């Protein structure tokens, strides 16, 4: 799975989550906006975390060197 595909998956999960909050706890436009902000922030944070780790391993400058014992 490439970078873009997984990013897309994150986006889809984010959209589904925001739809869920919209449907499950619909408490007026103000509260919905808050929920949407929370979901988006959470999605962006999680995506950033994943993307950073993924990108760092894409073109490795160093590779795992096994310890002597193993």
């Amino acid at each position, binding site marked *: *799975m490439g970078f873009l595909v997984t990013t897309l998956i994150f986006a889809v999960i984010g959209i589904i989550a925001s739809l869920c909050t919209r449907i499950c706890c619909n408490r007026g436009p103000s509260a919905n906006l*808050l929920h949407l902000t929370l979901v988006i922030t959470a999605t962006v944070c999680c995506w950033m975390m994943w993307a950073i*780790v993924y990108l760092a391993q894409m073109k490795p400058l160093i590779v*795992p060197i096994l310890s002597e014992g193993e």
Partner: protein
Amino acid sequence: MGDRGGGCCPPMDLFRSEAMQLVQLIIPMESAHLTVSYLGDLGLIQFKDLNSDKSPFQRTYAAQIKRCGEMARKLRFFKEQMLKAGFSPSAKSLGETNVGFDDLEVKLGELEAELVEMNANGDKLQRGYNELLEYKLVLQKAGEFFTSAQCSATAQQREMESQQMGDQTLETPLLREQETATDLSKQVKLGFITGLVPREKSMAFERILFRATRGNVFLKQVPAEEPITDPVSGEKMEKNVFVVFYSGERAKNKILKICEAFGANRYPFAEDLGKQALMITEVSGRISELKTTIDAGLLQRDNLLRTIGDQFEQWNLMVKKEKSIYHTLNMLSLDVTKKCLVAEGWSPVFATKQIQEALQRAAFDSNSQVGAIFQVLHTRESPPTYFRTNKFTSAFQEIVDAYGVAKYQEANPGVYTIITFPFLFAVMFGDWGHGICLLLATLFFIVREKKLSSQKLGDITEMTFGGRYVIMMMSLFSIYTGLVYNEFFSVPFELFGRSAYACRDLSCRDATTVGLIKVRDTYPFGVDPAWHGSRSELPFLNSLKMKMSILLGVAQMNLGIILSYFNAIFFRNGLNVWFQFIPQMIFLNSLFGYLSFLIIVKWCTGSQADLYHILIYMFLSPTDELGENQLFPGQKITQQVLLLLALVSVPWMLLPKPFLLKREHENRHQGQSYAALESTDETLLSVANHDSHGHDHEEFEFSEIFVHQLIHTIEFVLGAVSNTASYLRLWALSLAHSELSVVFYEKVLLLAWGYNNIIILIVGIIVFIFATVGVLLIMETLSAFLHALRLHWVEFQNKFYEGDGYKFYPFSFALLDDEED
């Protein structure tokens, strides 16, 4: 202050504090009490103290408050008595209510008098009872002593007689005959005193007696086996029964005085055996008689306390309510006609209808001729900050409030803190095993929420319970970041496919020297498990986590600056947009945004460029060729432009704003004569405007403004560097956490496993569990929590948050309970 919204979206909950208004209520005297009571039920208005110049005794309702205080004292007395008797006030409040305030006062007074009398009688009876018990003991012990003494005396006499009969030899003392003879003739009647003395004083008692009478006493002490209740103090203590023999009146007086000084209770005692027996039976009879009386009294008292206990909470609440109502009434000012009370206070705009409704209801219920008048005042005073939080958001809002309460309607960092706080925590605490432990612990609190919230908890438990939703979010994110770090108690799992790395050839000879080779696509989610335990693990994780900290930090700081833009837009402050937000954005991103960009480019291209070198020489010699450090074409010119932008943005932040402020101020002063006309139609509101007018004509001190701006600019420029560096704590803590858990796993669990011995294994597991819970789950949680807190308070919030507001404390009966403790 601008209006709400003004954009495409509806206003967001929690992002801005509630719109507030200063309201004035004019309440007829006769319905004032009921009105305030209804408003207390509603709990949405914060009354202003309009009598702050008056002392508490000069106020209108001082007498009523005094009465409430007296009633509260009586209730405290009842509570004390109930605790002493081992009752707890029943939590369930009975249905029957609506006792009038005056009735309650009378009732409380009666009950108190009754209880006090009962206590006095009980004490008296108890004292008598204890005295009798002591007396009985003295009778028994002294009786024993006398009988044994008599026995031994007769035995001695008999022995002596037999001796005299047996061997009247030379050894017989010559004087003896005489002595006994004279003894008989001069025989003095020896007096004696019996009683009880506390055991710890008995030695001193004996010594003093001996000294005072120069040894002319005979003291006999017998310890009582069980501790006895002292009739005077009512405490249990160890005591000795004593008998003192003396001769003469003077000795007796001395002994009596000494007895008094030592708290020794004396009891009459008859030498005659028959009399003794009689007295013992009499005393026993009286004891049992008293016992039944005392029991009956206690039962009656218990019944009384129980009836009090049934209604105690109800009364307590009522008294508290009354007291708070009169306190509030004291804050209202009396109208000149003395027929109305005038109240001023802050209330949220959304509560207008509810307040008016409450006023009407109060007017109706108190059969008042006229209703209360409700009107909104205009003022320039800054209103209190009020966020409507629920049980989930309140803990996060408290995290923000602990730093400073938001200015009125300022952008609330609490909204983002709900996500970013647990997220940054989890970056430092990434281990999904530990995350699950934390989640289970907090789920325990959440599931038992209803039960726990009603009872009193310890300090630490209380804190954990209050932050249960924060901890829940923290643990959820920990599980996520743990999956990204691929650590379950430091053990990696191939959950998302196979490792991307493999040996170069079948023999795997190079694996320990040159290393593995990447044969597949990058591991799709998180850190490749092949890294774990390898020799290059630490260099790899160091580089990854350091760069991650910078990327996350730059992102969060950018969010902070963007929020300052929303603030500037909301408060219609164009200056802050053009001369604060834009240069700040440019400065931060031309340096650290560029660094982040370089990091990503380096990752994507796999370049070997040295980022430190690039960034350092970007300042030192921007014109030099980059050579092998070139990451993308046109890098040199880009860097020169960025450097120029950064340099320009510093004076941009510093200089224009103070000058523009000065011009604005001068313009306003010129147009002052026109502004006065506008306020003429607000005559009604002149009272409210009066106190706030002073703020408007502040002196404009240019140097002060300029210095302030200078400080602000320096703070931002230096802060951009130091705050970015500060985010490196994410790297340090997350590395420390993972290394610690590796140590515990390898040096404790695996070591114990290696012995192939069940006992060692069990010990190893126990040590591992304690180390994991104590160090990783508790200590590390605390430290990661504190570091996340700092990152939010300092690095995030100093970009936009003023935090100089004050909190909205409504007059509410629901808040009364918290205040008390």
